[in-house]
Each structure stands twice: as C-alpha cells, then as structure tokens.
C-alpha cells in the first residue's frame, strides 16, 4: 500500500477502489458500493454527539490513519500461523488479516451445505445481498458495503441439519496493524434447516487488529440457527461486529455475544421478526478490564403478530472499563400478541468502572407482553461472607460468585463441547479454577 493512499481521506479512497478493484467486482456490485459510499459520506464516522455512539469514542479507528483496503497478500504469506486444532468433522473457515485462507480452512464435502467466497456468491445471486434495512442506517455498515472485498457465504439447503458447529476464525498478524479490515459474510438458512455458527478471533503477539465485520443472516421458515460470537480476551482487538438477521415463520434465531475482553468491542445486532411464530434468543456476556470498552447495541423488530424475543445480557466491569448496553424493542402496529423480554444485569467491580444501560421500548400494538429490567450493582456481601465463612478466600469467593453470575449466559449455548470450553475459559479469565484447588 502506497503511503499517500493510507494517509488520504476516505473520499479519495473510493476513487482508489474504483481505479484498482473495479475488475474484481461486477458492475452491479460496483453500483451498490457506490451508493453505500455515498451513504457513508453523509453519515460519516460517528462522533460521541451521535446518540447511538454517545459512550463509545472510536477515535482509535477514525483517527487511526487506517487503510480500508486489503492487506497485501504477500505480507502474511510466509508467516507461520498456528491454527488451533482442526476438528476433521467440522467446517472451519480461516481468514488471515481479512483474506480467506483456503489451505488452512477445512471445508467438508456435504450436500446439505455450501460454503463459498461471498464475492462468488454475489456474482450468481444478487437478491439477498445487502437487502436488510439495517445495512443502510449505520455508518459502519455503509463503510463495509463500500469497501469489503472478502468474506464467506454459508448456504444451508432445505431440511439440512449440520451437526457440528461451523467455525469462522479471523486471525490477525502484525501485517494488518494499519488496516481497518472490512469483512462481509452471509448466512442463508433455507426452510427446515438447523446449524450453529461460531465466530472466533485471534490476534497474534505484536499485532493490533481493527475489523468491521458484517454478517447478514436469512433464517427461513422453520429454520433453527444459532450464532456464537466468541471473543476471548484480545487486548489488541478493535471490533465493530454487525449482525443483522431476518426471520420467517416458525424459525428460531439464537445469538450469543460473548466478549470476555477486548480493547474496543461494539456489537450491533438487529433482528427482524418478519413472519408469525418466529422466536429469537439474544444472549450476551461481556467482561471488560483495564480501560477497555464493550458496547452492545441491539434492536429487535416485531413486525407481525405472535412472535417472541428474549434478551439476556450480563456484564462484569472491572478496573477503568466501560460497558454499554442499549436494547431497543420495536413492536410495530400489527404485531399483536408479541412477547418481548429484556434483562440486562451488571456487576461493577471497581469504583472507576462504568456501565451505561438503556432499554428502549417502542410499542405501537396494544396486546403485548413486554418486560424489561436493568440492574447495576456489586457482589452481594452476604454471599461473599457465606463463602468466606467456609474457608474460601476473598479472592476466590469473588471469582466464584462472579463466575456464577456470568456462567448463566454460557449455559444457554446448546453445544456441550463449546459450552465446556467457554466455561473453562471464563473460569480462567476470572482467576478461578475448580481443578487447581
């Protein structure tokens, strides 16, 4: 990447895109990108004056002289990259610095599922791509549409049930340090399907990662899709994670947003309940330490009658960290017999940590069951004393109670192996392990 380009404003960046990448994109896609870029120019990088970004300064990103163009492929080609154990039974999709790595991925031959590069998918089918309204309202989605040039599309064909979780892992090396990687994914679950998809991130030593990832999920009739955003402690990870889902009748969409620390994490999650009897479960756990920030913005759109949404978000804030929770529930005029629940509970474990929590309910139907609750507090002193009165040290009592608080979210994960792995990691993160004692 030429230095002038890196330092130029985003304005000139799009010209560069047109000049250098036009061949990679179809005319139709180029047109979409042009419009998205125009959107981004109007919206721009959000400042804290923007209500949706009030508590989340993104200076590290917007003023970071970061390039929105791909990392040069040669930069990481020779690197030794250790990919965690390949489970031969499960699909594992590996990206290195934003580039799909065919050699390191493990794609299983299965007629129920097709995994392809997102650009290849868009070439043949354009209908679903960028079709969700959320793509057009947020600056980071517009930026993603304008500049993405890789990502994965997972198609699960009618009535297929995929037994093992499909893993999408993003690995960052120091070659990506000055890049703001734009990745676009699509998950298309046809009627009657069942699958679970796990997003993982790992930042190598000396690397600082910036990523704007957008995943569009289409959950057809009677499909049951579970997503897990598994963000393990990555102190050099800056992540804008956009997940937009649309559900058809009798479907369930479950999304676990687990972030047990990261420098700056913003989850934008939006679910549209478009046909009756669709249910979504949105679970979240965030643990932040140091001066880190984890922000969860959720929107659930109840568009039709008889749908359910369940939100359970729990946070643990330590040191000088900041947590943000904003949960919007829109119950549209026709969405009678809606059941919508929201719970956000937070443990603030230091005097200098802060939590901003805001439920936002906009209800235009009258026959609706809706409940929400938010708490921000400390560990119960009585509980701590009870544990200490049995000989458990103060540190372990704190860790054990925090673990008990947080593991409720992990317990919602359906895959037992994944659940166990996350529980073990959670214990480690909190400095508590049953085995060690």
């Amino acid at each position, binding site marked *: 990447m030429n230095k002038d380009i890196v330092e130029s404003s985003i304005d000139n960046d799009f010209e560069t895109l047109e000049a250098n990448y036009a061949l990679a994109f179809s005319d139709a896609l180029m047109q979409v990108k042009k419009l998205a870029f125009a959107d981004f120019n109007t919206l721009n990088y959000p400042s804290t004056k923007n209500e949706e970004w009030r508590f989340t300064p993104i200076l590290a990103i917007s003023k970071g002289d970061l390039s929105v163009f791909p990392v040069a492929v040669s930069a990481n080609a020779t690197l030794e990259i250790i990919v965690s154990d390949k489970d031969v039974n499960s699909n594992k999709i590996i990206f290195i610095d934003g580039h799909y790595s065919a050699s390191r991925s493990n794609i299983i031959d299965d007629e129920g599922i097709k995994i392809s590069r997102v650009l290849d998918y868009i070439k043949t089918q354009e209908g679903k791509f960028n079709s969700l309204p959320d793509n057009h309202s947020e600056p980071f989605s517009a930026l993603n549409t304008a500049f993405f040039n890789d990502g994965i599309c997972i198609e699960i064909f009618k009535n297929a049930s995929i037994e093992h979780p499909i893993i999408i892992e993003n690995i960052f090396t120091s070659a990506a340090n000055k890049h703001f990687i734009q990745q676009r994914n699509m998950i298309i679950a046809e009627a009657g399907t069942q699958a679970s998809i796990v997003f993982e991130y790992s930042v190598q030593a000396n690397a600082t990662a910036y990523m704007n990832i957008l995943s569009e999920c289409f959950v057809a009739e009677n499909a049951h899709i579970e997503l897990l955003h598994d963000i393990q402690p990555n102190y050099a990870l800056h992540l804008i994670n956009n997940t937009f889902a649309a559900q058809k009748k009798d479907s369930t969409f479950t999304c676990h947003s687990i972030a047990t620390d990261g420098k700056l994490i913003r989850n934008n999650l939006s679910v549209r309940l478009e046909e009756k009897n669709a249910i979504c479960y949105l679970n979240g756990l965030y643990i932040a330490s140091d001066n880190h920030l984890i922000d969860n913005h959720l929107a659930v759109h109840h568009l039709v009658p008889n749908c359910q949404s369940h939100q359970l978000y729990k946070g643990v804030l330590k040191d000088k960290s900041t947590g943000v929770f904003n949960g919007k529930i829109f119950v549209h005029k026709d969405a009678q017999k809606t059941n919508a629940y929201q719970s956000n509970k937070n443990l603030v474990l230091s005097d200098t940590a802060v939590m901003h929590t805001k439920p936002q309910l906009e209800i235009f139907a009258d026959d609706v069951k809706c409940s929400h609750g938010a708490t921000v507090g400390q560990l119960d002193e009585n509980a701590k004393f009870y544990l200490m009165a049995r000989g458990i040290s103060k540190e372990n009592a704190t860790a054990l109670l925090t673990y*008990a608080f947080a593991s409720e979210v992990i317990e919602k994960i359906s895959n037992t192996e994944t659940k166990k792995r996350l529980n073990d990691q959670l214990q480690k993160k909190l400095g508590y392990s049953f085995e060690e004692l």
Partner: protein
Amino acid sequence: MISIKNLHAGIEEKEILKGFSLDIKAGEIHAIMGPNGTGKSTLASTLAGRKTYEVTAGEVQFNGKDLLDMEADERAREGLFLAFQYPVEIPGVSTTNFMRAAIAEKRKHHGLAPMEAKEFLVLMREKMALVEIDKQFMSRSLNEGFSGGEKKRNEIFQMAMLNPLLSILDETDSGLDIDALRIVANGVNKLRTKDNAFLIITHYQRLLEYIVPDFVHVMYDGRIVKSGGKELAMELEEKGYDWIKEENIVQ
C-alpha cells in the same frame, strides 16, 4: 478450645455485645439461650468474622491463636464453623462445587495435598446419608429454592464435610419440624468427639432434648447473665424469659 474474654462489639454507635465471656473446652457442648434481640446472632457472626460488627474491646483465643486477628476465611480454615441462622442463597454455585472449593482451601492451608476426586465423592455420599439429603440437592444452586428445613440440613451437611473443631449453630432448630430436628440433632451427636466442641444457640429448649448440653448459659442484653447445667434449660422452658429480664432490670 475457645476462650472469649469481655467481648464488646456492635455496629457504629450501638453496642450489642457488652462484655461477653465464655470458655469452651474440647469435648464440650454449650448451649446459649436467650430472648430475641439479645445479641446471640451478633456473637455468632462476630466470632465467625463478619465485618459488619466492630469489636471495641475484649479478646478471643481460639486453639491457641488470636481469633480476632484473623479474617473470616482464615478462621474457618483454622476450624471454626458457623451454621447460619439464615443460610444465603447462591445462584449458580452448586453445593458440590462450593464444598470442593472449601475443602481444597482448607487442605491447602494445612499443607495437605488436594483430595482425590474419588475420595471427595465418597465423603460427600457419607455425609449426605448422615443428614438424609438427596443427591439432587448437591448439583442444584446452593440453597436456592430450598425449604427452611433443607437449608438447615445443608448447613449441618457442610459442617460434617468440613469437620470443624468448634461448630456454632445459630438457631439451627428454628423452623424445623420434629423429623428435621431429629436429623440435625443426630448429625451433631454423630460428629461429636472428644476433640471438638459445639456452641448451640437456641431460643427453645426443644433441641436440647436431642442434643444434651454440658452447660447452658442464659444471654441477655449482650452478655451471659446465668450459667448452669442442662436443668437450667428446663427451668427457662417453664418460666419463660421474663424473670431473667426482670432480674436484670432490678440489678
């Protein structure tokens, strides 16, 4: 085993324990009786190390060590046990994991190697049988949704698991039906040895029919006002606490 001398403790400006003294030797069972609001639970909590109560005067020697110098967890590891009057519900922590953590820390404190998983399970099974608790309680969240009687039995179970030197039972009998009372008493009697001791706080004489104390003390307004043998409990049962109150107002 424990020697409490002229203990004064309370909260902020209010003194609750006003010169409490008591000696308990290994092998003994002492009972403390007294009207509500007299400071019995405050005594138990102060001995166990609850920070709510500030000790303003007095000293406590426990097994040759200065008890007041230790934090709650260290006191427990040294062999002091408090069966809570109101056991706390701990969502998300199972009794099994709780006990595993407690035993592990106690063993580490005493320089012992961690207990083998199998040995731990055998111990659990044995102690569960002692207090007649079903094993399904072990994997459930600690005390959450337990009935009053189940919580109290769980306290005795924990006591049995930890095998303390001195066990303080704070109104473990209140709210128990006769069967549960018998189970609790049976647990204590079976655990009793010549090397350990019990301090049983109760409001009623009922429990003392099952656990026969060597000494009975009447507590009133933050200190012991009368001591005697087990017949003192009978006397209190007959006369109630009013005569104690009157006697002490006259003084």
